[in-house]
């Protein structure tokens, strides 16, 4: 993905490669040691920034919403939520789908872009993967507390028991258990495997005995042996190859929760690809929401450059367009199907009592991003991208709201029509999970290397083994 064009004068802007006119993926003048200290010192410093404590405090305070909300939920039951008949799926399912979608960008960056040899991904993949794991933690909370009797949630797993009761594998809800638990496990394993060489670096650079000990244990005794590296690279590539079908299947299976039901607005074959594209769309928005403040606060502009932001904005443009196609196709099919129920569902979605939700979704997911992201000036405007990323995440939340609520509360029998109104407990738990995510992310930034150092070293021009003099030219080209 190239960023070409005479936006900046190459002579003035050192971040632009004078030969190609593109933004550099890594600022010039770095060597193995400087990129290592740039990342490792963020963690190994003895002076924790005051802002970190402040952020952790705010995040922890907001996360109390989850603790209080779930405690009250367990005491009283799901009746404290706004779920009723026929709207039996409320915030819990909306938030579950929203959070797990956010996680998808991390796997896309770490797996699919690795297979496509998009080396620019090296500097953003670690915190994107962390984002995936923390988003899955937040997502996983919701189905567990939504089952009604959460202390029996382990019945979802197939295990031998004295009741002789087993799961029913024709149900998409049983598929969900397998998809989400596999996704969480593989994401954590991939993330940890990626960190092993960096833990070795941290162990060797740490000064405090406890840090040496802790990173030493985590590094498993990694010593950078070439034979180890070859097996390690093979395993990473295989994990990337396995994560790619996995990430596509997870949101597909989640869309089956809807698509397998025979409800107008849910029962459609476009759901799997449209859910996956939406997931990647919101996920990249979340990566931008995190990357933009991180690069500013920790002075990482040298390794998370405008090229990365531009490329991510392009991925958002592509996936956003697929999502827009999905919306258009839903409207078209509701007319083309010649089904009275489908037609009414779409009319009600647009102009019914909750029509404002649909237009919010069109405004924030389609109208604003898909008109502005075509402009390169805006794609490299950091403030604009940050605001846009928040807008898109709001839009994706509204998408899930529209899908879950507006299909359910007007079902086939007008006598059973109802409405949906979220309660304060719904909002408290939802906002609380954002606090939980913040706390986890702040801990990650403080204690783990947030950018893979070993992979950054591979992006430097001095990485290549030179064979004679003529190769010196190609060296620069391959890292661009």
């Amino acid at each position, binding site marked *: 993905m190239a960023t070409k064009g005479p936006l900046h004068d190459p002579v003035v802007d050192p971040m632009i490669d004078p030969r190609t006119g593109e933004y550099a993926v890594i600022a010039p003048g770095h060597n193995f040691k400087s990129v290592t200290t740039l990342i490792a010192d963020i963690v190994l410093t003895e002076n924790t920034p005051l802002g970190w404590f402040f952020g952790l405090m705010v995040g922890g305070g907001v996360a109390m919403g989850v603790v209080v909300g779930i405690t009250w939920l367990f005491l009283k039951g799901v009746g404290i939520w706004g779920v009723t008949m026929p709207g039996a799926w409320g915030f819990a399912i909306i938030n579950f789908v929203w959070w797990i979608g956010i996680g998808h960008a991390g796997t896309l960056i770490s797996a699919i872009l690795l297979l496509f040899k998009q080396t620019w991904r090296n500097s953003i993949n670690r915190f994107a993967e962390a984002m995936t794991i923390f988003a899955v933690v937040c997502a996983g909370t919701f189905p567990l507390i939504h089952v009604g009797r959460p202390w029996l949630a382990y019945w979802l797993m197939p295990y031998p028991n004295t009741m002789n009761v087993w799961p029913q*594998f024709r149900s998409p809800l049983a598929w969900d258990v397998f998809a989400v638990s596999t996704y969480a*496990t593989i994401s954590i394993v991939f993330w940890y495997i990626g960190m092993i060489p960096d833990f070795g670096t941290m162990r060797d650079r740490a000064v405090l005995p406890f840090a040496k000990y802790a990173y030493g244990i985590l590094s498993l005794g990694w010593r950078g042996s*070439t034979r180890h590296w070859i097996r390690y690279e093979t395993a990473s590539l295989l994990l990337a190859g396995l994560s790619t*079908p996995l990430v596509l299947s997870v949101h597909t299976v989640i869309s089956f929760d809807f698509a397998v039901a025979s409800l107008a607005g849910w029962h459609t074959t476009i759901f799997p690809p449209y859910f996956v594209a939406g997931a990647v769309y919101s996920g990249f928005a979340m990566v931008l929401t995190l990357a933009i403040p991180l690069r500013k606060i920790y002075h990482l502009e040298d390794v998370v450059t405008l090229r990365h932001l531009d490329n991510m904005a392009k991925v958002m443009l592509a996936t956003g367009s697929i999502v827009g196609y999905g919306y258009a196709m839903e409207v078209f099919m509701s007319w083309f199907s010649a089904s009275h129920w489908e037609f009414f569902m779409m009319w009600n979605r647009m102009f019914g009592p909750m029509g404002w939700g649909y237009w919010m979704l069109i405004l924030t997911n389609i109208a604003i991003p898909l008109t502005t992201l075509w402009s390169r000036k805006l794609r490299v405007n950091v403030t604009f991208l940050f605001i846009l990323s928040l807008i898109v995440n709001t839009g994706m939340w509204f998408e899930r709201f529209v899908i879950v609520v507006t299909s359910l509360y007007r079902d086939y029998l007008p006598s059973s029509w109802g409405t949906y109104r979220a309660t304060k407990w719904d909002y408290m738990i939802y906002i609380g999970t954002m606090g939980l995510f913040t706390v986890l992310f702040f801990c990650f930034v403080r204690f783990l290397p947030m950018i893979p150092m070993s992979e950054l070293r591979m992006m430097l021009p001095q990485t290549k083994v030179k064979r004679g003099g003529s190769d010196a030219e190609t060296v620069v080209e391959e890292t661009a």
Partner: protein
Amino acid sequence: MPPREGIYCLMAEFNTPTELVQATEAAYRAGYRRMECYTPYPVEEAAEALNFHSTRVPLLTLLGGLMGFTTSFLMETWINVWAYPLNIAGRPLWSWPAFIIPAYEWTILFAGLSAAFGMIALNGLPQTYHPVFNAPNFRNGATTDKFFLCLEAVDPKFSLTESRSFLEQFPAVSVVEVDH
């Protein structure tokens, strides 16, 4: 088992991967086989110089994936056909297309875990002690910015004096003896 006392290897430190690969290729040509490179990131040319190509990680991954699929599919069949048959809207008990989805997920789960833990096991990790860390300059460089070639003492061609003079003909920063 190699002797656990005395000298483990002679270790040469280099500043660039090119120097390391040239030295390794020369050592291989000179007949050294029990040797190892240590680098801060994967250097494929070093593996070629060591004549180390294939690994068994892909095979383990394949076996893991097959095991995951079989386990899951047989488990679902047994549960829904024999152990706990349920009539769901008159569908057949052996609804194999529906069983594919959990089987697909477990294929990936088992294959991924086999790839990750297989790699760790084949690498002999976790390892709490290794003699290379006894080299005074190893921890400062091997995981940051230096490149090491280690000629191990168990190699039949190894000789403290000759191997040292062999390594010193290259632009090494230092050549040190590493004890067990």
